[in-house]
């Protein structure tokens, strides 16, 4: 028994970074908009208050703001020869399940992708020849350029109050910023974070080696800030408990702090929390979406008709909803044909820990993406002629606010437990920090998402299956970056240093990053993409699929700002182009 509701202009599935901005922009344009969110409603001043947010056990391990796997998870295997098994507990990544989505607990790392990231295939082929990419690599251009997207990065930064120092203003290199970034039309809305003593040591060593350090751009307010939507956010107190935590100060820009206070006041907008969309409905031709079907908080099945459907959920759910709805041709890794589930990728990470017997730091002070970083190995600045890998990384010393359940660096050779371990932990917690590697990850023919043949969710629907492993290209890149970080470490004259080994296989167990991308990628060719450059479905023109799912491969920097930028870009496309010819392709 399905209850059918009255039609609306637009139904937006998911209230995270992408969904909240699209709702706001479409509501501002006068459309009647309903947002359907599987998680519960959050009132920050009720749910996220001091001192409860300063709880490492809850937020690092057990929080109910993360996805509840008892209802839905994914299955995972390293390769097609294995049987995928369910991710039974959270580890490698932490998708959210509340109004505000995963961004409610993001780390505020707010960087733009480089111009090269959107054209990696053509630019690297032009520079290094056709055979530069591994034969199984399916990385491709995005079908849109940085110059087209720049105004939307700017818009997002003025919604999320990003703090930073421009390194390139309209083509002119600026002192103090990142000289390798794409040109910006204007300065950041807020000043940059200050360097910590650890960051200053790193910056000094990096400069001595000829690199170009700058303060990491962050969406934690560096001063009280009123954004584009006239919403005020308070200054970050650098109290740590940031990434994977909710912020009690409201200083972390996210849908709950930057968008919802304005959005929830709109009479032509409705938020429907605790409603889990299970299908995008299409008409008899399969060429037009008619709305979505969801299961509401009381377990009832409801159909919401709409003229426009926007999927703006986590990368996994965007892909899964397309597969469950029979929209777009599923990807087949054997033949390399089909598109839905193609080009799943992740983020490559590494670090070198440095230990100083004669210095103490304050590792618990930080958060809000307090970091010092450089881009000399990112983008086109790095000459890869003799390196043998595709891709990039930026190198950073961050002070996320070290909490002691998970952050207890000890030198190589320390036992895992017992008296010697205890002494090493006590000695080194305040005498160490790490040089982080944040790297890109290319897409490959054999890494993809599809529906699992065995395991099902609480509604009886197939789980999404992830097939992914580290490719030797990323392993080579990480080895190179490790070597560079060791040089920087040595330049700081530590007592000792310890580089994390390059992983041989990808594991679902340890937390790495919540930077899963791809599966419903954007592009210029319907044979290799699910959506066109406006994030509009090639098959169903009144369906838009927005989020990390649209990335054809991952860049070195974190994905969140680009998700927010794509939401601004998509919304403008719907308002300015699509609404003039509704139901039709925008190209």
């Amino acid at each position: 028994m399905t209850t059918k509701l009255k039609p609306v202009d637009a139904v937006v599935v998911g209230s995270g970074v992408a969904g909240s901005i699209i709702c706001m922009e479409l509501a501002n344009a006068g459309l009647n908009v309903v947002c359907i969110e599987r998680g519960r409603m959050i009132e920050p001043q009720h749910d996220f208050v001091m001192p409860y947010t300063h709880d490492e056990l809850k937020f690092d391990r057990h929080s109910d703001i993360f996805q509840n796997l008892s209802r839905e998870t994914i299955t995972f295997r390293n390769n097609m020869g294995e049987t995928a098994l369910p991710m039974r507990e959270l580890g490698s990544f932490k998708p959210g399940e509340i109004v505000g989505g995963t961004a409610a607990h993001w780390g505020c790392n707010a960087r733009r992708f480089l111009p090269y990231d959107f054209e990696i295939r053509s630019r690297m082929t032009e520079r290094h020849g056709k055979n530069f990419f591994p034969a199984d690599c399916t990385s491709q251009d995005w079908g849109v350029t940085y110059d087209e997207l720049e105004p939307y990065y700017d818009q997002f930064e003025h919604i999320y109050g990003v703090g930073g120092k421009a390194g390139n203003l309209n083509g002119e290199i600026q002192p103090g910023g990142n000289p390798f970034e794409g040109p910006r039309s204007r300065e950041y809305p807020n000043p940059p974070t200050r360097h910590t003593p650890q960051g200053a040591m790193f910056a000094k060593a990096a400069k001595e080696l000829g690199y170009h350090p700058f303060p990491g751009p962050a969406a934690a307010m560096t001063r009280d800030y009123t954004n584009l939507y006239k919403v005020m956010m308070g200054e970050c107190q650098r109290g740590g408990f940031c990434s994977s935590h909710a912020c009690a100060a409201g200083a972390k820009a996210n849908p709950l702090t930057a968008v919802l206070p304005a959005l929830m006041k709109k009479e032509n907008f409705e938020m429907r929390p605790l409603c889990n969309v299970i299908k995008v409905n299409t008409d008899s031709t399969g060429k037009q979406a008619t709305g979505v079907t969801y299961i509401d908080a009381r377990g009832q099945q409801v159909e919401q008709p709409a003229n426009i459907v926007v999927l703006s959920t986590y990368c996994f759910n965007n892909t899964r909803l397309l597969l469950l709805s029979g929209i777009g041709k599923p990807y087949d890794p054997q033949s390399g044909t089909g598109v839905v589930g193609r080009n799943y990728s992740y983020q490559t990470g590494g670090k070198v820990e440095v230990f100083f017997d004669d210095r103490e730091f304050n590792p618990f002070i930080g958060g809000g993406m307090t970091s010092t970083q450089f881009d000399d190995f990112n983008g086109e600045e790095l000459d890869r002629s003799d390196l043998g890998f595709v891709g990039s990384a930026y190198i950073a010393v961050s002070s996320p606010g070290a909490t002691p359940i998970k952050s207890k660096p000890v030198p190589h050779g320390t036992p895992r437990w017992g008296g010697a371990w205890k002494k090493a932990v006590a000695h080194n917690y305040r005498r160490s920090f790490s040089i982080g590697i944040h790297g890109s990850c290319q897409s490959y023919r054999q890494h993809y998402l599809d529906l699992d043949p065995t395991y099902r969710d609480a509604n009886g629907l197939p789980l999404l299956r992830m097939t992914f492993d580290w490719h030797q290209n990323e392993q080579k890149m990480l080895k190179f970056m490790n070597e560079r970080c060791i040089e920087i470490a040595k330049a700081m004259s530590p007592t000792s240093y310890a580089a994390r080994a390059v992983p041989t296989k990808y594991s679902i167990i340890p937390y790495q990053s919540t930077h899963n991308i791809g599966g419903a990628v954007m592009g210029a060719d319907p044979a290799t993409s699910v959506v066109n450059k406006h994030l509009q479905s090639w098959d169903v023109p009144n369906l838009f699929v927005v989020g990390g799912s649209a990335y054809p491969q991952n860049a070195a920097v974190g994905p969140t700002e680009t998700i927010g930028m794509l939401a601004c870009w998509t919304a403008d496309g719907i308002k300015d182009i699509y609404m003039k010819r509704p139901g039709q392709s925008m190209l």
Partner: protein
Amino acid sequence: MSASNNPHAYGCLTQPEIGFLNAAVDRLIPPDELGPGGKDADVTYYIDRQLCSVWGTHGRNYRSGPWLEGTPQQGFQSRLTPQEIYHVGILETNQYCSKQYGKNFEFLTAAQQDEVLQALEHGKVALPSLSSKLFFDLLWRNTEEGFFADPLYGGNRDKVGWKLVGFPGVASGAYNAHIDNPEVYRAEPVSILDIQTQQAKVDAQGYAKHIMIKPIKSTASK
């Protein structure tokens, strides 16, 4: 009521299980000149409370079969909940110790206990119902949590874990001004439990008012 004057009532573990865990957590994090070990930090009580929580029955985990062993990269794949892993793991390890040493784990010498823990850690004890490595990994993970989590969860008694490393707990509003200051920031730790039980003061924004510890002349340990 503060943790130190709260008589512990155990909701899941029995006395023999408590005896086993007190001995085990005190080998994993032994008492020494730096401070108390796992037992006096109330790590066993922390584990008991976790076993009584949603986590103890994997209430937020995916729990449908089929149950295959999987590869090491595929993560936790046991049919058993943490409650069951502790009950079964303790019983079967004690049976192994009786056979090997003629005594239950808690009555072995420290060296023998270390030997058993190492054997469990490396999967060298053939427990009938589960991998000994699985049991050890869970025990070690919970021991670290119980030593370093906020005392509101029953462990980290008197914030001994935080005092050990110099972690101040709930942040102070003074951090922002200190972010680029190389001076060592050393404060008496404040927990959520302290604030809830009004043992510690907070500012208007709810941040802890830290009581600073006088700097010691030389902080280098060499």
